[in-house]
């Protein structure tokens, strides 16, 4: 039987084996150990060819499969009342499959969202005044972990916190028009209030629109330098 494995990243050897079984529509309770071993080994060879680093778990599993394969040939030949050498692997795969499927259930559940929204805790203070005499930058540094934590959370977390709706293009056009009318000329950077990518994009789009309607003219000295915006005369 032919096989076709794209070099996708697997979570581990069990993930790879399970995928091979699903792709080849093999009955998990009656795995052809030599077929699966061959496919597993050729996947690893592909990885080697592409200079990908092979995790030790994959190598260990490969040697286990080879060992199982030889034991299984012996087992078939003698047909004595020994335990089928495949049994342990089959059991592990079935357990793994159940959890993998269950994780899909949780994934679906998470994507749906619970539809309810929460508040932040209220704050309570006793004191009112800050002592401004003995302040140093070192004291601020103590709080940097909370800033860094925020970064991590953003990298890998749930949409549990909701933020206020972002700017519409129409609103931003009005805002840029207002600033230009008031100040006559200003730079693109002066229009941006946050590091928010969306704000930058929407602001840029507003400029394009205002150029089209001939309300403003822009000027840029060099690539990537700040854009100067002037009211069209």
């Amino acid at each position, binding site marked *: 039987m032919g096989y076709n494995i794209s070099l996708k990243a697997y*979570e*581990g*050897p*069990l*993930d790879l084996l399970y995928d091979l079984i*699903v792709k080849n529509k093999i009955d998990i309770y009656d795995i052809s150990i030599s077929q699966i071993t061959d496919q597993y080994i050729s996947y690893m060879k592909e990885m080697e060819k592409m200079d990908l680093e092979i*995790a030790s*778990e994959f190598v260990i*599993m490969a040697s286990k499969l080879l060992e199982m394969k030889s034991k299984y040939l012996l087992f078939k030949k003698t047909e004595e009342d020994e335990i089928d050498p495949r049994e342990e692997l089959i059991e*592990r795969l*079935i*357990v*793994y*499959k*159940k*959890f*993998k*499927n*269950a*994780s*899909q*259930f*949780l*994934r*679906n*559940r*998470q*994507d*749906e*969202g*619970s*539809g*309810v*929204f*929460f*508040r*932040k*805790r*209220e704050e309570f203070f006793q004191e009112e005044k800050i002592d401004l005499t003995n302040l140093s930058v070192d004291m601020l540094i103590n709080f940097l972990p909370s800033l860094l*934590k925020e970064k*991590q*959370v*953003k*990298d*890998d*977390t*749930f*949409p*549990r*916190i*909701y*933020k*206020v*709706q*972002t700017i519409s293009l129409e609103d931003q056009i009005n805002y840029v028009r207002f600033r230009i009318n008031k100040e006559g000329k200003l730079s693109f950077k002066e229009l941006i209030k946050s590091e928010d990518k969306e704000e930058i994009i929407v602001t840029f789009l507003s400029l394009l629109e205002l150029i089209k309607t001939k309300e403003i003219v822009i000027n840029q000295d060099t690539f990537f330098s700040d854009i100067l915006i002037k009211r069209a005369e």
Partner: protein
Amino acid sequence: MENIKIKHVIESILFAFADPISAKDIRSVIGEEINVKDVVEAIEELRSEYNENKRGIQILKIEEKYQMCTNKDYEEYVKKMLEPKKKKSLTQATLETLTIIAYKQPITKVEIEEIRGVKCDKAISTLVENDLIKEAGRLNKIGKPILYKTTDEFLKVFGLDTIKALPDIETFEEKIEA
């Protein structure tokens, strides 16, 4: 304290505390003159008042703890006002690890690794950082390995009242569709 006042004190506590809180903790704030049973009764009364009248605020019960939230029926409006941040879901590795902990808790890292066939250190630390799992003591074995269990935050995020609300693992013999 009269019953109606207890109810309103609890209402202000649930509102201000914002996170899940147990009847026991609420009672310790109100004082010795009432017992935990009275608190539970008052909360349940409050809950059904909010619930029956389809009020904008609801009281969630998660594993014996209570927390105020908005009514799901009005999701479309609240959502319009608070736009969700970019959806960032857990990676497959982290999600699989979380699933195993949810079903097998309390469980050690080594046991999880046996099931998944790979190292899970990274996934476990991500889950701890995001408050989805926590340590639950240590196993009395060589190395005293840490046991992990899921948190109330886990239940909240996945919309479960209790950990028992998870479907039986045996029902996952067949693959479910995304």
